[in-house]
C-alpha cells in the first residue's frame, strides 16, 4: 500500500493489466495467428507453410463471391426488418409503458433466454411443411400447393431477423426513453402536427439508438451460419457456413482464415459507409 501511495499514477495500470493482458493474449494474438495462417499454402496432410500466399484472398473472393454477397444481403434485409419491427414497439414501451416499462422490456429480451439453437429449431417447427403457417399460405395461394418455406431464403432471413431482434430493440428503447418529452410538447405547442413533431424531433433524437441497433444486428448477422444451416438448404448457405466447414470439416485453414478476413473487411466497409451516411458524430455521440 505504501508503494501504491507513492506511485498513485500506477494504480489504473495495475487495475487494467490482468484483463487487458488476457484480451491481448486470447483476442489480439489469435487474430495475428489467423492473419499468418491466411497467407500460408500447402495442404493438411503435408502441412502448411508461410509463403505470403496472397492468392488465398483472391481465391476466397473469386470462388465464394456469391456467399459473401448473400451474407451481406441477408444481414442487410434482416437488419432493416428488425428496425421496422422494433421501432414502433420500442416507441410504444418508451412512451406508453408507464411504470410497466421494465416489465414490458422483458418481453423484448425474452427470446435471449431460450438457447439460440433451440429457438431456431422452434422456427423450424413453425415453418415446417406440414405446419400451420405453410398450410395457411398454401390455402390463401401465396405459396404453391407444394410450395415450402423451409430451405428458402425467406426462412433464413426470418430466422436471422428473429434471433437478433433484441440487439436492435434494446438500443432503440434506450435512446427513445431518454428523450425529454418537453421537447416534443414544445414542437406541438409551436403547431407542429404529431407526425411532424415525430419526424423533426423524436426520430432525429433516437438516431443514436438506430445506429447502435443497426451495427449490433448487422455484424453478428453477417457472420451467422446457424440459421442458414437449420432453416435453409445449401443454396442459402452464407459465408459463415463456408468458413465453418473449411475450418472444421475440410481442414483447409489458409482458405478459411483468408475468408474470415475478407468477411471482416466487408463488414468494416459497410460500417464505414453506413456511419458516413448517417453522420459520424452520431456514432460516437
Amino acid at each position, binding site marked *: *500500500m505504501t508503494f501504491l501511495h507513492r506511485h498513485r499514477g500506477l494504480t*489504473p*495500470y495495475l*487495475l487494467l493489466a*490482468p*484483463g*487487458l493482458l*488476457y*484480451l*491481448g493474449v*486470447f*483476442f489480439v*494474438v*489469435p*487474430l495475428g*495467428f*489467423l492473419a*499468418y495462417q491466411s497467407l500460408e499454402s500447402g495442404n493438411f496432410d503435408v502441412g502448411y507453410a508461410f509463403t505470403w500466399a496472397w492468392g488465398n484472398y483472391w481465391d476466397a473472393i473469386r470462388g465464394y463471391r456469391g456467399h459473401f454477397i448473400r451474407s451481406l444481403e441477408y444481414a442487410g434485409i434482416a437488419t432493416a426488418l428488425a428496425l421496422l419491427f422494433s421501432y414502433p*414497439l420500442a*416507441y*410504444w414501451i418508451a412512451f*406508453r409503458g*408507464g*411504470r410497466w416499462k*421494465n*416489465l414490458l422490456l*422483458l*418481453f*423484448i*429480451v*425474452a*427470446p435471449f*433466454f*431460450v*438457447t*439460440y*439453437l433451440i*429457438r431456431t*429449431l*422452434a422456427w*423450424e*417447427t*413453425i415453418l*415446417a411443411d406440414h*405446419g400451420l403457417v405453410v398450410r395457411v399460405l398454401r390455402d390463401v395461394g401465396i405459396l404453391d400447393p407444394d410450395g415450402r418455406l423451409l430451405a428458402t431464403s425467406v426462412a433464413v432471413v426470418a430466422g436471422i431477423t428473429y434471433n437478433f*431482434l433484441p440487439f436492435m430493440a434494446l438500443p432503440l428503447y434506450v435512446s427513445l426513453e431518454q428523450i425529454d418529452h418537453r421537447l416534443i410538447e414544445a414542437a406541438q405547442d409551436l403547431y407542429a402536427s*404529431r407526425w411532424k413533431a415525430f419526424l423533426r424531433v423524436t426520430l432525429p433524437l433516437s438516431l443514436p439508438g438506430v445506429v447502435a441497433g443497426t*451495427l449490433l444486428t448487422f*455484424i453478428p448477422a453477417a*457472420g*451467422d*451460419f446457424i440459421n442458414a444451416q437449420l432453416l435453409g438448404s445449401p443454396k442459402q448457405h452464407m459465408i*459463415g457456413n463456408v*468458413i*465453418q466447414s473449411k475450418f*472444421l470439416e475440410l481442414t483447409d485453414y489458409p482458405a478459411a482464415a483468408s475468408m*474470415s478476413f475478407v*468477411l*471482416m473487411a466487408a*463488414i468494416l466497409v459497410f460500417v464505414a459507409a453506413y456511419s458516413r451516411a448517417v453522420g459520424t458524430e452520431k456514432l460516437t455521440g
Partner: protein
Amino acid sequence: MTAVAASAPARTSGWTLAWTFVRHHVLTVYALLAFTYLMLPIGVVIAFSFNHPQGRFNFVWSGFTLDNWRHWDGVPGLRSAMVLSVEIALLASLVATALGTLIALALVRYGFRGRGATNLLIFLPLSTPEIVLGASLLTLFLNLNVVFGFSTILIAHIMFCISFAVVTVKARLVGFDRHLEEAAMDLGANEWATFRKVTLPLIAPAILAALLLCFAISIDDFVVTYFNAGPRTTFPLFVWGAARVGAPPQVNVIGSVIFIVAVTGMVANVLAQMRRERSATTA
C-alpha cells in the same frame, strides 16, 4: 393516460382527437401482435417439451406426456453436456467479471494515458463476428499444439465475456459518488479498507449484473465453443449434434427450464425495483 386525454388542449379539433385515439390504439394493437410474435417460438419450445413424438423428429404434435420432464436426462450425453455448460459458465463468469470490474474501475475513476486504446480493445471483441473470434482462437491453439477440451472452452468463454462485464459495470460506475470514498479516507481508512467497506458494497449490484450476464452468454454460446471444444460437448453443442438426427424432446425440457429460471429471476428483480421506487416516491 386518461389524464393526458382529458387535459388535451381545447384547440385540437375533433379530427385530431379521433386521429389521436386511433393512433393510440393502432400502436397498442401492434405492440400486442409484436409480443405474440416474440413469444411464439418460446411457446413452441415449451409446448413441444410435453410432446410424445412418434418418430425421431419432434416436429409434429402427437400427444401430451410428462415423461420428458420426468426423465429429462433419459438421453445419453445430455446430463454431462449440461454439467459441463454450467461448470464453464460459472468459472467463466467469475473470472471475466473480476477482470472486467478492475478494467471498469480504472476506466471510470482514473485519468491515464492509453485510455482510448483501452476502450478500443474492449469494444473490438464486441464488434467482431463470433465466427472470427472462434476461428482465430482455433488457429492459436492449433499452432501452439494445445490439447482441445475443458481449458480451451474456458479460455474462449472468459475472452468473449470480459468486454460484456466491463460495459455492464462501467454503466453503473458512471453515476458513482466519489465523495463517499473521499469521506472514508478523510476518516482515516486506507485505500484497501475504503475499497472493501465503501466501494465494493456500492458497486455490488453492478458486479452481480455482470456475473449474471456473463453466465447467460456463456451457457448459450455455440459458435466460439464449436470451434474450440475438441472432443467435449456443451449443452448447445449437444443440441447441434442432436438436431442433425432429430432433437429429442428433452432438449426442449432443458430449454424451458433455462427460460423459466431466467425469466422468473428477471421478473422478481423488476418487481422488487418497482416496489422500491414506489416506496421511495411515497416516503
